[in-house]
């Protein structure tokens, strides 16, 4: 087996889970954070010859804690690590071939040998979501979306395909773009805009400040999410919350699209209750002109997130169907209790 070979060759240098995680995310732009975390943990198991259950669980716990500490925003990631840990424990507790009666090595082998499969499934769940979500994009409707969510992109592209290609496009997209971190790079989401335009979908790009102005011409709002929290709210890129508030105020349906592996066990009570530190509001008494005109640690909208509470969300489009926000807690309860 390949894993045993790589084990011997790399035994010398200690396995760095943080580097692995970052490398995974970098190497595959299609990878989501939870999946990268699961992959990193699988690789960790490959590299550590633990053979007992408690040893493995202990190792996982320690590495997870380390990984979470080293990443500025571990919300999306923790969905993956939690899911992995629960899966392991649940499978071990369950009677059956992989349970305590069976061989621990069997489940280990299953996990190790199927790393690629998990990634593939995660990507496929996007197609599934796109299939469910297709019904939301109606003929003649205008969709407002934001950010660089891959799920939203695949949903819209699928809808564009269904409507019969360039000749018979019947929906339009208003894409909210936030400026890129450095001015030279193009804003996140441009790729989707281009892909949609190539399919003949008329796309308008607007800055975040024009959302309220544009909502009058919008029929539905579809956004992606980094994590879906227990009360059914979503943690998503900065700016989503205000779109949600505005959509509610204008009476437009607001749909969040997320794979079910992004459900995370977190119950934020408000914006400032997320377990991460974001220096978005940074009070100063002095003019901030220290280095250039770039204030240090500026909270940039592609790095920082906000929390959209469940009452703003009409429905969550997930790979297990179209859920109301309150259904999320049930899914989470199923894996934890």
């Amino acid at each position, binding site marked *: 087996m390949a894993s045993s070979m790589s084990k011997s060759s790399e035994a010398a240098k200690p396995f760095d889970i943080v580097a692995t995680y970052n490398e995974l995310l970098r190497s595959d732009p299609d990878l989501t954070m939870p*999946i990268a975390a*699961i992959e990193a943990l699988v690789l960790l198991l490959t590299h550590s010859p633990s053979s007992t259950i408690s040893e493995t669980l202990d190792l996982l716990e320690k590495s997870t804690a380390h990984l979470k500490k080293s990443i500025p925003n571990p919300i999306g990631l923790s969905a993956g690590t939690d*899911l*992995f840990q*629960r*899966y392991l424990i*649940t*499978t071990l507790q*369950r*009677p*059956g*071939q*992989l349970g305590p009666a069976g061989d621990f090595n069997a489940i280990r082998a*299953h*996990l190790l040998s*199927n790393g690629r*499969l*998990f990634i*593939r*499934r*995660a990507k*496929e*769940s996007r197609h*599934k979501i796109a*299939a469910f979500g297709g*019904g*939301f994009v*109606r003929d003649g409707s205008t969709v407002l979306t934001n950010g660089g969510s891959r799920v939203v992109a695949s949903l819209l592209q699928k809808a564009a395909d269904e409507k019969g290609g360039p000749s018979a496009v019947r929906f339009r997209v208003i894409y909210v773009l936030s400026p890129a971190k450095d001015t030279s790079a193009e804003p996140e989401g441009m790729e989707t805009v281009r892909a949609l335009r190539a399919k003949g979908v008329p796309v308008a790009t607007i800055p975040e400040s024009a959302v309220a102005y544009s909502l009058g011409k919008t029929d539905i709002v579809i956004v992606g999410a980094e994590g879906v929290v227990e009360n059914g709210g979503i943690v998503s890129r900065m700016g989503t919350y205000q779109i949600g508030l505005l959509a509610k105020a204008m009476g437009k349906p607001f749909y969040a699209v997320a794979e*079910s*592996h992004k*459900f995370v066990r977190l119950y934020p009570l408000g914006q400032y209750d997320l377990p991460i530190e974001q220096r978005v509001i940074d009070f100063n008494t002095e003019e901030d002109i220290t280095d250039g005109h770039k204030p240090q640690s500026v909270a940039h909208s592609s790095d920082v997130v906000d929390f959209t509470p469940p009452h703003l969300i*009409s*429905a969550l489009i997930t*790979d*297990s*169907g*179209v*859920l*109301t*926000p*309150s*259904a999320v807690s*049930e*899914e*989470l309860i*199923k*894996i934890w209790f």
Partner: protein
Amino acid sequence: MPSTSVALTPGLASFLKSLKTNPIDTSIDNLISLLKRRQIHHSRSCATATAYLLLRVISACRTTDAAKLIERVQSVGRRLVAAQPREMVVGNIVRRVLGLIRDEAEDDREADFNLSEAGSESQPQTPRALDDPSESMYGRFEGSDRSSSRPPLSQPAPISMFSLLSHPEPELSLPGTPISASPSGRLLGHAPSKDIRAEVLEGVNEIIDELGQVDDQIAAYALDHIHSNEIILTHTSSTTVQKFLLKAAAKRKFTVIHAESYPNNHEATHATISGNSTGDDEILSTESFQKPLIALGITVILIPDSAVFALMSRVNKVILGTHSVLANGGLIASAGTRVIARAAKVHQTPVVVVSGVYKLSPVYPFDFDSLIEYGDASKVISYEDGDLVDQIDVQNPLYDYVPAELIDLYITNLGGHAPSYLYRIVSDHYRKEDISF
């Protein structure tokens, strides 16, 4: 042509009568044309007619193969739904019957599996008998089917979130291929089962019983919700609402403000209040004769629909009937309901919707407009008014879509639920693979 029962006015009663004598295909055509002509149009009548028809279809379908039975019911169901897509209860009943067949087939197969397991321990029947238990959790369409394809080990409910990590799929269904072709066919196909039809027929009869009892079951909750000296506002002549009010009226004194729902339902509404109810062919059982509300000493105030907002400030509670309830907690009810719900929201008056579970549809309302049906324009302006009819466009929408946030509580025969909880009842009643049959 189907109608051999010309003596009766076509409707539910004549349909049920003819069902016994007519050949099955004639009956199907008959119901389709009745639905198309809107000669059966109440939710419950449609549900009852569908249930009785499916009862006939199943008993006439001489097969022991569950897959064939499902196919037959599906094809009949598709035709009925196509005949009147806005009558969502028809689809609901078909889905429930399909669910019944699947359940029975699986029970059957499970028992079968146990037997063979006991017989030959070492030799699994299918490759999947060896699979990881959680393997079945992959795939939304498959979850429930699969879980019973292996010996029952008293496992917890399938956990869809684990779908990502579970075992790879063997052979045919690569995770990538869309699994729209439900595997149940394969699964149920080779079950060398006994005749499951008897059990399915029993189940369909239970559904029919449920349709008969639903109003009384809902009415049992009336005393929890209607208190002494309250002022209740209601709308249309829904029998569910009437029974609900009558039940409370037996114990309590309260006032009912009844919006008359002109022009589609005002006559029936007047009748339910005054008791001059003419023979309503839609009501099946003979004992469903309504005592008028006033006979029980309730003060009833009949108002035109336009006065709803003005009176809302005095109202303690709004109780509404509905045409169908959708999976997101919204509902389709007779025109005018949304105005009432809106007015209630403005005055912070609780809105309670009474509805049988059979009206709860797993359909997600992607496009609200398509769910609204338009009716006879002559009810607004009669055609005798020729001059006027020539010059103006008269529309008479029969239904309203009421979004979930305007509703505070649903009372079904299972109890009271918040709108956000309805998805749960949907998943309890319908199987995922049947949602788009």
